[in-house]
C-alpha cells in the first residue's frame, strides 16, 4: 500500500487505537451531550472539557462522493472518495469497498457499515461497505 498514512497525535490516539481494535470511536460532550468529530479533548459546541470516548455503531449513510478517474499511489482508478454521515451525526471521509465505483451502484443515502483495513503495524483505516440486512 502506498497510501499516505495518518500520524496520530495525543488528541487522536484513541481514534486510531480504536480502528486497530475494530472500533469506530467518537466523542460525546458530557455537558451538552452532542457528539462531534474530528477528535478533540473538549466540546466544540459548548467548550466543555468533560468529554467521553465511546464506540459508535459503525453505521451510516452515503452523504456525497466523487469517483476519481486519475491514478494516485496506492489506488486503482476508478475509485470512490466518499463522505459518510454516521448514525450518531458526524461525517467523515472514507473510501467505499465491496461495491462498484459507478454512479449507478453508489446511491446517495444508501446505508453503509464500517470495515477496518489494516494498512500498517500502527494504522487501520475505517472504510465503508454497503450495509447488509436491517439497519
Amino acid at each position, binding site marked *: 500500500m502506498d*497510501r*499516505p*498514512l*495518518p*500520524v*496520530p*497525535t495525543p488528541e*487522536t490516539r484513541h481514534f*486510531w487505537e480504536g480502528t486497530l481494535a475494530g472500533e469506530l470511536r467518537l466523542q460525546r460532550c458530557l455537558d451538552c451531550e452532542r457528539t462531534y*468529530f*474530528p477528535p478533540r479533548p473538549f466540546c466544540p459546541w459548548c467548550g466543555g472539557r468533560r468529554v467521553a470516548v465511546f464506540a459508535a455503531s459503525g453505521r451510516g449513510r452515503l*452523504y*456525497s*462522493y*466523487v*469517483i*476519481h*478517474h*486519475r491514478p*494516485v499511489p*496506492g*489506488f486503482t482508478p*476508478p*475509485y470512490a*472518495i466518499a*463522505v459518510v454521515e454516521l448514525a450518531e451525526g458526524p*461525517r*467523515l*471521509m*472514507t*473510501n467505499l469497498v465491496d461495491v462498484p465505483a459507478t*454512479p449507478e451502484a453508489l446511491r*446517495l443515502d444508501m446505508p453503509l457499515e464500517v470495515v477496518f483495513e489494516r*494498512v500498517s503495524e500502527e494504522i487501520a*483505516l475505517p472504510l465503508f461497505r454497503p450495509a447488509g440486512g436491517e439497519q
Partner: protein
Amino acid sequence: MSRVPVAVVGAAETERLGRVPEASQLQLHADAALRALADASLTPRDVDGVATAGESPVAIAHYLGLTPTWFDGTAVGGCSFMVHVRHAVAALREGLCSTVLVTHGESGRSQVGRARPARPPSSLAGQFEAPFGVAGPSTLFTLPALRYMHAYGVSEAQLAMVAVVQREWAAKNPRAYARDPLTVDDVLASRMIAWPFRKLMCCLVTDGGGALVLVAGDRARDFPQRPVWILGSGEGVETPLVSQMEDFTSSKAFRVSGRLAFDRAGIGPAEVDHLMIYDAFAHLPLYGLEDLGFVGRGEAAAFVGERHTAPGGKLPLNTNGGGLSYTHTGMYGMFALQESVRQLRGTAAAQVPDVRVSVAHGVGGMFAASGTVVMTNQEP
C-alpha cells in the same frame, strides 16, 4: 457613523498570463505590483502598507524595497485578496498607513519558485482526508457537489452549462486562456477527472499575478484612474476539511462573508450590476449565487440555464471568463477583483454597459474561507 471612504486607485495584472516560466512566483508579484503602481502614477517608495498571500509580506516588502507601517499576510487561499482589501480599508481608516499595495503572483503552471502548502500526516487533513486517495482540489473541492445536485435535482448538463456560459465571456477577451466556444456536449465529453467533474468543469492551471493600490479619503480623486470605492466587504471561515462542512449544499463561509459585505454596503443583490464569483470548479458559481442571495435555494442552475448570467443577461457573471476560461493561477481571487475594477472603470474587454456596483466574491481552500468586496464607481 460616517466613515472615510476608501478606493482602489491602481490596478493591474502581470503583463502576461498563462505560461510564464521566465518569472519566479516572487517576480510575478513584483511585476503586477509595479504595473499597478504605474497605473496610479506611484512608485514603491510611495507605499506604506502591504498585504499579500502566497509569499510572506516580509518577502514582498523586501523585494520591492518597501518600509510598511502596516502589513497583512492573511493566507486563506484564493479569497485572501478580498480579505486583504477588507483589512486594508480598516487600516487606512485607522491611519495605520496611507497607501496600500495588495499583491498576488503565482507560478501555478510552471512551478518556478513556488512553495506548496503542506498537509503533514499529523495534521487533521493528513489523518482524516489524505489517506483516502485524495489528489488535490479536484477530489476535495468537488466532493459536496453531488449532494447539492441530489438535493435540488441539478443535472450534469446543467453543471456543464456554467462552463459553457463563461466561455462565451472568455471569447470576448483577448487575454483569456481558453476562448473557443463550448457546447454542453463538449464539456460532458471532456476527460473525466472526478465524476461528475470533467476537465472542462475544472479550472485552468496558469501562471500570473495582479495587484491593487488603495488609499483613503479625498486623495483618491487625485489619481489618473477613476476611483473604485469600496462600499463594503466581508470575510468568513468554515473548516479546513471539506468533509466537515456543516451542509454540503451551502457554504457557511460564503453566507457570513456575503452578509457582512452587503450589510456594510447598505445594498442588496438587486442593486448589483456585475458579479464575480470565484469559479475554481463549475459548481462554485451556483453556491455563490444562492449563498449571496441572488437567487433562492436550488435556483442557481436554472438561473444560469436561462442565460441570466450570460452576455446580454441581467446579471453578468465572471465576465473575464473566470477561473474556468480566463486564468487560474491557484489563488484566483485577485483576478476577480481586477475584473470588477475594470468593469467599474469602463475598461473591461467584455464591458457591460452602465455598471455602477460590482461584487467580487471569493472562496479560499476547499470551501474553507471566503471574502466578499462590494465596489462602486459612484461618488460616496
